[in-house]
């Protein structure tokens, strides 16, 4: 076969001007860099926590120091030095229920990100975290009347009705010893959300938490705990962004989701951390009988990501769907994917992921599908498609399957390739310019994920990708 010279698609980088703005930290409370028991005690004392939480933090700190990172794991995080990370930075403000009560610089930040507008138009409730603390939290009255609780973990801990619930569920799905950065999270967690949806309640509009890390050389460690009781229904949206610095930032949040019998939870994430961010986040859901878990995940930012949302299909006939897209550009090494553990009988799992690599960006898709001995008639399918937009980028697919039930049926397929010249030619023969044709192909590639999002977030995602096709340059 003769050597071919093929044109390459040029795709513009994500336009980050929307996200790359900062405000002074003057007047902020910022703890010393590093990780000591005194810092952990200070965080706990500031939050006036129950003693069990302090003890949990201190034990997690010991675990963090004792645990080693696996030497054979993913992209390097050598640039992350906890001695140069402040684990707690707080603006001098109290949590507000009205945007007018939020300090101007913070309010401007969230307005530029479109959060108040989204709240007015399409959300049942909003939480906004700025660095280590929630600065705004509100929920529609009619949702509250149904008994839905949407608050911070800190506030739930101070409520006699909810403190025992937090105690019962916090750290149970993701134990502090799960891995090194889970331990770190439990030592210094701050902010995040507590959501409780009573049995049978269907929340019509999504709840959204938005996490903004403004401070340089800081970490954000929010904890999200969601309990969806029997027969209830919730869509929760999580958004994150940060301005770019040259000093490493760290995000090591944790998300614990309990989906009870016959309940449904959709958890959507648009993650757009800046390219100096180490995003080492842990998410896990436990799904009971006849319940359904849906993940929609868009990962665009960060320097290095380790992100593998896990679903445990514990109950019979439970199911999960995972739709994800990852975009890795210059200087990014994103190690993402998902894990599904099928333990119940007649459980089903469907995983559909896309990745786009350009400008030397590295994408690694990892998955694990584990079918336990009790998972009779379990069904799982994994599909992974990767698009390479130039020859200096990289895309790896590393799935693993462990099947221990004879009646289970597990399928996996993956493809890696570039935009086909034939496809472009076909579209051009029908009147599209080459740039339009390539734009359509890439748009169509991302569409299965973006269509899973509410319209406003699909638009945001498309803006994030900002796939401006600028013709073909060899």
């Amino acid at each position, binding site marked *: 076969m003769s050597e071919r010279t093929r044109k390459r698609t040029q795709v513009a980088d994500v336009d980050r001007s929307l996200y790359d703005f900062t405000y002074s930290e003057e007047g902020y409370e910022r703890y010393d860099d590093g990780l000591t028991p005194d810092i952990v005690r200070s965080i706990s004392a500031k939050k006036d926590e129950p003693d069990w939480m302090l003890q949990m933090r201190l034990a997690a700190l010991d675990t963090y120091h004792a645990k080693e990172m696996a030497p054979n*794991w993913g992209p390097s995080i050598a640039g992350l030095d906890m001695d140069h990370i402040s684990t707690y930075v707080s603006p001098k403000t109290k949590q507000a229920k009205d945007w007018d009560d939020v300090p101007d610089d913070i309010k401007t930040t969230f307005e530029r990100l479109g959060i108040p507008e989204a709240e007015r138009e399409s959300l049942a409730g909003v939480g906004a975290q700025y660095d280590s603390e929630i600065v705004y939290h509100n929920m529609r009255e009619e949702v509250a009347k149904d008994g839905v609780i949407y608050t911070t973990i800190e506030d739930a801990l101070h409520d006699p009705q909810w403190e025992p619930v937090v105690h019962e569920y916090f750290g149970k799905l993701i134990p502090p010893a799960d891995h090194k950065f889970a331990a770190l999270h439990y030592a210094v967690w701050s902010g995040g959300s507590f959501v409780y949806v009573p049995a049978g309640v269907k929340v019509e509009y999504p709840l959204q938490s938005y996490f903004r890390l403004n401070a340089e050389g800081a970490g954000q460690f929010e904890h999200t705990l969601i309990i969806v009781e029997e027969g209830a229904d919730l869509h929760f949206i999580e958004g994150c962004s940060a301005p770019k610095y040259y000093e490493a930032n760290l995000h090591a949040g944790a998300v614990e989701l309990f989906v009870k019998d016959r309940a449904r939870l959709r958890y959507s994430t648009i993650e757009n951390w800046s390219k100096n961010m180490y995003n080492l986040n842990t998410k896990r859901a436990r799904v009971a009988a006849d319940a359904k878990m849906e993940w929609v995940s868009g990962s665009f930012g960060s320097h290095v990501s380790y992100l593998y949302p896990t679903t445990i299909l514990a109950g019979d006939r439970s199911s999960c769907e995972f739709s994800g897209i990852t975009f890795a550009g210059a200087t990014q090494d994103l190690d993402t994917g998902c894990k599904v553990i099928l333990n119940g009988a007649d459980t089903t799992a469907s995983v559909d992921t896309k990745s786009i690599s350009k400008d030397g960006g590295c994408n690694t898709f990892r998955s694990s599908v584990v079918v336990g001995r009790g998972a009779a008639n379990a069904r799982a399918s994994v599909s992974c498609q990767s698009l390479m937009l130039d020859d200096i980028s990289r895309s790896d697919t590393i799935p693993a399957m462990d*099947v221990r039930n004879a009646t289970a049926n597990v399928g996996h397929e993956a493809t890696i390739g570039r935009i086909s010249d034939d496809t472009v030619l076909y579209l051009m023969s029908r009147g599209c310019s080459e740039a339009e044709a390539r734009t359509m192909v890439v748009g169509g590639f991302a569409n299965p994920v973006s269509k899973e999002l509410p319209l406003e977030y699909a638009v945001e995602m498309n803006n994030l990708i900002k796939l401006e096709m600028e013709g073909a340059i060899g």
Partner: protein
Amino acid sequence: MDSQTTAVPELTLGRINTPPAQTWNYLRTNDVTLTVPRHSRAGDVYFALPRLFEGIECGVGPDATAWVESQASDARYVEVRAGERREEPIVVSGMDTGVMVRAGAEATVVVCMPSTDAIPAGIGTSGSEADGINTSAALVRIIAERDAHVSVLEFVAANEGWQHIESVGIVADDRARIDVRQFFLGAGTTVAGLACSLNGHNARFDLSCRYLGRGDDRLDINHVIRMRGKNGRTNVSESGVLDDRARKTLRATIDLVHGSAGSEGSELENVLVLSDDVTNKTMPVILCDEDDVAGNHGATIGSIGPEQIQYLRDRGLSLEEAENLYVRALFDDALIAAPNTTVRAAVVERATEVLGAELANDLVEALGLDRKGE
């Protein structure tokens, strides 16, 4: 080397069959560890292969390959001259074997681990009365020059009293074609690693791997195909049947190295699971460092569907007979592919152990053979 019953020093070999990219360690899929005998070679003169074989990546990894080298009775270098079509298969016996297939030549390499106690093939067979486990190993490295065509046939057909390590490394130059057929039909533990590097342009690699795991068999397979030259083609097909308490791990990696523009690689595994006590682990990996390529992989893991069972029942077959059909098809294929009487005899003997004498007789009669494979 004949099997022995005296105890010999042992060595724990770790990180065998490690794939180029790894997954979560808690899944225990990233490698395998074996306890193997360590015969002393002190005082022996070892005639090594020519140096150019040293750099060839072998599927089981450097540590296990070094162990096999250290236990081999000798090194054997075979060269097939340019343009020659060698009819007689090159049978890998108890030596570290290097095969050079010169430009335009054709050759067949056979590795066989039969089930008889008198092991004619394998390196470092040994064992102890204490554990009753014997160890055998085979190592072959192949260089296929431009336009060469190499067929590799591997058969492991031993009983549960054996653990077998098989390591293959291949490099292929421009337009070289490599066909590999693997039949892993039995052994208490089978650890097989194959690595092939398509260094030249327009080279092609086809692999068909069929396996059977039953009883307490442990089967650990590692396939690594590095596509380095332009316009290479790789097709990997694995299929197997697992029953009883068999444990199988398959790692298959297609590595589209930077510079492999125009290359395409695909890999597909089908696994039939017949028992709830089976452990089946599959890790199909594509690594891609080049944009003008296509990589695909797929895996299906399951049992015989209820509709299929009903279909077969309607035709008078019990479930056990239906399942035996799959196993029999595997032995059929192995017998057809077997290149000589030694291999055929080994396959027939293993078929007798697995399917019983009656079905094994059916097999050989259908192929016009006797029970010795002649």
